């Protein structure tokens, strides 16, 4: 995981002067990636355990929060949300979403090497496409500077320099 991130992310730190990314910020993107994929997996296990819910009993969806798998999924997704909001405060939505999509690759590789499931050629191609997409987006600038945001950013940088 770290190796893939290093391979796809480190070149952008040196090739783009407009990138606002630092190593701790890449760690936050990694947290977004892992908590989202694990949280979704836990939720899907919990949803299957609940059984079918008809349109006439939508209130049963609220009872879903008593299922342990769904509780664990929600806890992980709260961690995802905190790190996702942090990432959105210093990077564009169209940077954060593709950059954190490596979670799909992590799940596929876990199923191959941990659960010993067979990965078809389609899935390997899928992994290739996602990794390529992550590589493309992380080599570019992470933040679109608008006029007011630029002033705020400069003020923040000046203050952080004076604090250090």
């Amino acid at each position: 995981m770290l190796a893939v991130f290093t391979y796809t992310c480190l070149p952008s730190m040196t090739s783009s002067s407009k990138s606002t990314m630092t190593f701790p910020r890449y760690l936050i993107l990694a947290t977004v990636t892992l908590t989202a994929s694990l949280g979704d997996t836990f939720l899907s296990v919990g949803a299957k355990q609940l059984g079918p819910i008809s349109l006439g009993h939508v209130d049963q969806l609220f009872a879903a929060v008593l299922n342990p798998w769904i509780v664990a999924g929600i806890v992980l997704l709260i961690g995802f949300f905190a790190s996702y909001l942090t990432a959105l405060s210093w990077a564009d939505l169209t940077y954060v979403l593709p950059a954190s999509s490596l979670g799909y690759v992590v799940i596929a590789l876990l199923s191959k090497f941990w659960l010993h499931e067979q990965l078809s050629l389609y899935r390997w191609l899928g992994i290739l496409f996602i990794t390529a997409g992550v590589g493309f987006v992380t080599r570019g600038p992470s933040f679109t500077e608008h006029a007011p945001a630029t002033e705020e950013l400069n003020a923040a940088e000046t203050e952080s320099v004076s604090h250090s």
Partner: protein
Amino acid sequence: MNISLATGLPVASMIASIVVTATAGDVLTASAMRKIGDLDVIRAHSGLLGAIRAVIASPRFLGGVLCMALSFFALLFALNHADLSLIAPASASLTFVSNAFAAKFFLKENVDRRRALAAICVCIGVALLAH
């Protein structure tokens, strides 16, 4: 057309509900975070509680959370009636594309060829993972 036997609803409409609400939630949340500013700076000035207060006091953020909650229940509902291998990749891959459009038009983000290509690559990749 693929129709859920339990609800009579087309599966496509379930996926569309997830995509629309997820995109609205992402765009509103991203817009709120851009308006609030760098959370690292706010936390340095006002502490963690100050950062949390700044986020939850934003009406756009609350609107985004409402849309995300709707998306969450739409996903839970869809997972209950259709296969995860169809719902998850279809909604996730389509959300990447809809988010790219929404970010360009609503957030005025610089969605250049690099980012468009990245969104398309991830969209195709997620769809291929379902096979």
